[in-house]
């Protein structure tokens, strides 16, 4: 079956941040430079070609962009300055919107305005919710001089709300993941994956989820990989703490500084601050390849994350120093920053790659193995 070329795809992709990719004339240098290219996985070139040609269907079933960690080698060495790394980045944004059946993702990515409006609405909703449902603002301090935050915002209630948000977002993320499975695996008629591969190949995907070992294969310094990993682990830990252990994490009494609650909090927050400042400076200076091109979603993401971390620190400082009103207002602000970030990014934007990357590794490995098996059986027949 022939695939109809869709000349509109290109215009669509431009909105996701792409630039002139017709500069690429397929010399193959990017594929040659890339450390992650394998026999069956010829990125970035293959995906770039599909994008160039307007092959909407082929692109939707191509998981390759998720296997790229944007080290920037290809863009650095591209003889035509076609910026393949950034094209892969754009395609990740595009694919996120392709997997998202609600269309919300596409809206956020394609329009900075929409994204900001959505966030503003959420921000104001959180503030309004506190105005309406917020507990009394007690000025009385605890015995050890801390602010009684749990009276203003009881951890159980906040955790309850967190759970609701989590469930909702999980629903969307999960359905998007199923959609990805449908597009990448089921629609690809060239491979029929044997059932046992689903079990044998899951290990590597999980390992990569935890360690991002693939990223370490990229040609950049270890520091880079570590920074990314640290940020990811920090975020996941914080996510788990806030969702499942908020009562333990959000206490009124002040623990000693070496208490695990405070230590973990410090380490993660420091990481967040360091990471977000590092990214912001990078994006401003545009020296490194990966920082050269910033989409609005990139900016919103780092700024919000910075604000969340920064406001979290402020809450902590105000609370242990017994400044009740400052603590309450900052807390409201903290949640008003966090909720929009979680809602827009987890299932519909940048953070969803946390799920898509390991899935892509999983699907790609299964496909690769299946193809090898097919090739073997073909050879055994002919001999």
């Amino acid at each position: 079956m022939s695939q109809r070329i869709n000349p509109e795809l290109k215009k669509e992709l431009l909105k996701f941040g792409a630039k002139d990719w017709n500069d690429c004339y397929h010399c193959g240098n990017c594929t040659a430079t890339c450390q992650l290219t394998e026999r069956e996985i010829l990125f970035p070139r293959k995906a770039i070609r599909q994008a160039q040609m307007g092959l909407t269907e082929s692109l939707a079933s191509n998981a390759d962009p998720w296997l790229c960690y944007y080290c920037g080698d290809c863009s650095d060495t591209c003889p035509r300055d076609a910026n393949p790394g950034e094209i892969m980045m754009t395609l990740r944004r595009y694919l996120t919107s392709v997997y998202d059946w609600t269309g919300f993702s596409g809206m956020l990515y394609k329009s900075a305005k929409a994204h900001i409006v959505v966030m503003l609405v959420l921000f104001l909703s959180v503030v309004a919710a506190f105005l309406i449902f917020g507990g009394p603002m007690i000025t009385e301090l605890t015995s050890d001089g801390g602010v009684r935050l749990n009276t203003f915002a009881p951890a159980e209630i906040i955790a309850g709300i967190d759970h609701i948000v989590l469930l909702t977002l999980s629903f969307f993320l999960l359905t998007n993941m199923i959609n990805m499975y449908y597009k990448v695996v089921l629609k690809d008629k060239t491979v029929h994956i044997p059932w046992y591969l689903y079990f044998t190949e899951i290990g590597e995907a999980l390992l990569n989820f935890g360690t991002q070992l693939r990223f370490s294969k990229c040609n950049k310094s270890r520091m880079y990989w570590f920074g990314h990993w640290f940020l990811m682990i920090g975020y996941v830990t914080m996510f788990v703490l806030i969702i499942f252990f908020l009562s333990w994490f959000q206490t009124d009494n002040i623990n000693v500084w070496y208490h695990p609650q405070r230590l973990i909090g410090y380490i993660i927050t420091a990481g967040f601050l360091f990471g977000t400042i590092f990214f912001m400076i990078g994006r401003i200076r545009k020296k490194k390849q990966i920082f050269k091109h910033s989409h609005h979603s990139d900016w919103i993401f780092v700024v919000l994350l910075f604000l969340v971390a920064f406001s979290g620190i402020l809450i902590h400082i105000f609370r242990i120093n017994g400044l009740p009103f400052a603590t309450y207002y900052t807390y409201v602000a903290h949640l008003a920053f966090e909720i929009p970030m979680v809602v827009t990014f987890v299932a519909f934007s940048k953070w969803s790659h946390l799920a898509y990357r390991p899935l892509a590794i999983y699907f790609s490995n299964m496909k690769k193995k299946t193809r090898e098996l097919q090739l073997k059986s073909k050879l055994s027949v002919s001999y």
Partner: protein
Amino acid sequence: MEEIKIGVYVCWCGTNIAKMVDVDQVVDQIKFLPDVAVARNYKYMCSDPGQDMIIRDIKQHHLNRVVVAACSPRIHELTFRKALAKAGLNPMMFQMANIREQVAWVHTDREKATKKAVSLVHAAINRVKWHESLDKRTIEVNPATLVIGGGVAGMSAALEIANAGKQVYLVEKSKKLGGYAAQLDLTFPHFYSARQLIKPMIRHVEDHKNIRIFKPMQINQIFGYMGNFQSTLQLANGDETKLKFGNIIVATGLQPFDPSEITSYNYGKLPDVVTSLEFEKMLAKGRIETCEGKEPKNVAIIHCVGSRNANYHEYCSRTCCMTALKFANQIRSALPESNIFDLYADMRSFGKGCEELYTQTSRKNVIFLRFDQQNGLPEIRSTNGEEAVSMLIEFTEQFSKEQVEVPADLVILMVAMESHADAKDISHIAGISMCGNSFFIEKHPKLDPVATTSDGVFIVGTCQAPKDIPDSISQAKAAAARVLATIHVGTIEVDVITATVNEDICCGCQTCVSVCPYKAISFNKEKGVSEVNEILCKGCGTCGSTCPTGAIRSRHFTDQQILSQIQGLLSPDNKFEKM
């Protein structure tokens, strides 16, 4: 008769010959042949020391014949003939054995190659014994020049010669000067208007006092030889005019390939499939439109139509890729919202400004798709009005290996450049050879791409090979320089290899008269014998093998020379069975 003394020289050509032919053995085997006075081998016979060796030997050993076994006589026969002349010997007392191109480079068995080399040298020795002294003759050059073809190449050559103050006769078959270049809209890569470039040139040619233009005019016959050609032209008013000229520049140009040969493109059946030339005309008119007069939403350009394909023409037509990019640019500026698809086999953008044009075009939202010439060309089919788009082009895209279909409302076929159909007639009239693909053959593909094997006849422009305008003009001006050089010298030497009639034997049967393609033989009624005009004769030797009495001798290719060559070649010692 003086005693025959032959010097035989076997060249190693570095390792070129020595690697496959045992040159020592060749010398050992032939040095005892009768009449061989000296036999040597040397690293490079054509080098100065090599030639000096021959000259020294001629003087020392009083040699009167020389055989050199080396490369093809087409390369160095003249070199060695000059060496003989330098030594005071008639240059024709020389024979070459081709043991490089026809032995060392084509065989793999050293023993057999050596044996074959010996037989070729033996044949040359046998032949050279019968060689005769022949003397060069010089004739005067007529300073006028005939230019055939009034395209951009022909006009450039004509102007160059006319500006030097020499008479030019420019013959153009059609009613207008300018050729195909005048039909183009813009030129690549700088988008100059072709008309603005060509028009002043035409005016200049038409107004030039040294250029006499004949159009529309076809040339039917040219008599004569380098320096002294003549032709009679039939004028429109019934008069005849007789032209005399010393040189001919042929610029018959190109014709576009007819794409209806390629069935998958459905040219001629689908009205919106047009050739590049038709599209140029559309552009010149100022509006890109489909047959229904609508603006096309999707425009596809297909490269290599008839080029680089063994079924049509194997050669690359050189200009189509860049013209296609030029089209893409013109379409983009005329129809900013259109989708442009460029279907190519390889993007060939060599030369100044061309890669730049490609880069520039690739940034204009043109979708480049690569097809494979070998495994099925794209197929254009109609949607029969079932879709918004009128045609679909189906093929396997080579980078993605995806089977795709491209929507198109207008398809432009970048048709190949062919040598003009009239070139065949002109090749007979002017005596130029054609290669398999109907382009004229130049004298040497590397060293002399302007001249032909017929002295005084030059080829310029696309009749020699596909070319763009600047290349055609360069070649035209080069040819003009060559012509002016011969006019400046004023005389030329003519070949000595001609036929001659022995009047004591000729019986006057006149069989030879009609055999000669150059009308060089005539019957002398008074003497009752045939006579050869040795200036008209080009030495093909056909009359020699036609004459039933042996009265006609083909000089330097006499029966006796060739028969002894055969006998040498087949000397029993040189057979493989004797190995």
